[in-house]
């Protein structure tokens, strides 16, 4: 992917209001791969007894990361929208730790991008969640 396309994709993702509200930061982006991290925040707690982050915030991270991976793909000229997304929750994320999602486009056609993603906290050997999704390929 050209440096210019990377810059445009990064700029677009960084202006998404909901991603900003969740404190997401792009840590890697390019050629159909994206890595985005979301800090621990008490406002995102889903289980007040344990302090574990709500699954919904993890879904938002997975969706953003999947979309970013599609937008960074050399064969995807413009925007994208999620067609479907399935998330498997393997374990509760450890309270106090940030969550990092890594998504890759493993196949792309003229209209559809197929994406896989994994989310981890500090213990990178045991994923918190994995996701698979289909995204639209727009603008061609």
């Amino acid at each position, binding site marked *: 992917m050209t440096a210019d396309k990377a810059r445009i994709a990064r700029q677009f993702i960084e*202006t*998404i*209001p*909901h*991603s*900003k*509200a969740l404190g997401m930061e792009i840590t890697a982006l390019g050629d159909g791969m994206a890595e985005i991290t979301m800090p621990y925040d*008490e*406002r*995102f*707690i*889903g*289980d*007040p*007894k344990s302090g574990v*982050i*709500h*699954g*919904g*915030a993890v*879904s*938002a*991270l*997975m*969706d*953003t990361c999947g*979309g970013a991976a599609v937008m960074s793909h050399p064969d995807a000229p413009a*925007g994208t*929208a*999620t*067609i*479907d*997304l*399935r*998330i*498997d*929750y393997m374990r*509760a994320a450890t309270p106090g730790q940030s969550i990092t999602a890594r998504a890759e486009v493993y196949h792309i056609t003229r209209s559809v991008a197929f994406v896989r993603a994994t989310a981890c906290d500090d213990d990178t050997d045991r994923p918190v969640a994995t996701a698979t999704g289909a995204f639209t390929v727009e603008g061609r």
Partner: protein
Amino acid sequence: MARKAPEPVQVVKQRRDAALNALVGGVPYINFMGISFDRRGDELTGVLSFDEKLIGNPILPAIHGGVTAAFLEVTAVISLSWAYIWEDFESGALDVEALAAGNLPRLPKTIDFTVDYLRSGLPRDAYARATITRAGRRYASVQATAWQDNKDRPFAQATAHFLMPRPDLSND
């Protein structure tokens, strides 16, 4: 054989509303997202109040897909928990005042969650309802649908599986 007099309406309403408030109000993320619940008898409708921070595509503009997923997941898990505790707080086995004081039952854990995006979420309020298709002792299957202007034209739907809390571990 005198029949037992029905409870006064305000007693019934107060108990149910208190139980719902305890269930929903204790979760910071639900509050952060601006989600509330409308109750008619035991039927719940999730309400997502629109806010700029829910936008995912500022050009269209459209609600973030992650917001839609989260809204459906919150509606599914609250509806499931609500159905799970309904009998107990109605019978008095579960004390509503203890619930309100934060002594909540453990929530079901999401095993997996699949969301279909049917059309883009417009920058306005959204509503969702969940149906429990199977409520077992250990596992439950739930479907949820979200709409905006027209209930017959949903903008997203979801299927989810949950691991139910073990009753014997409810106070750990």
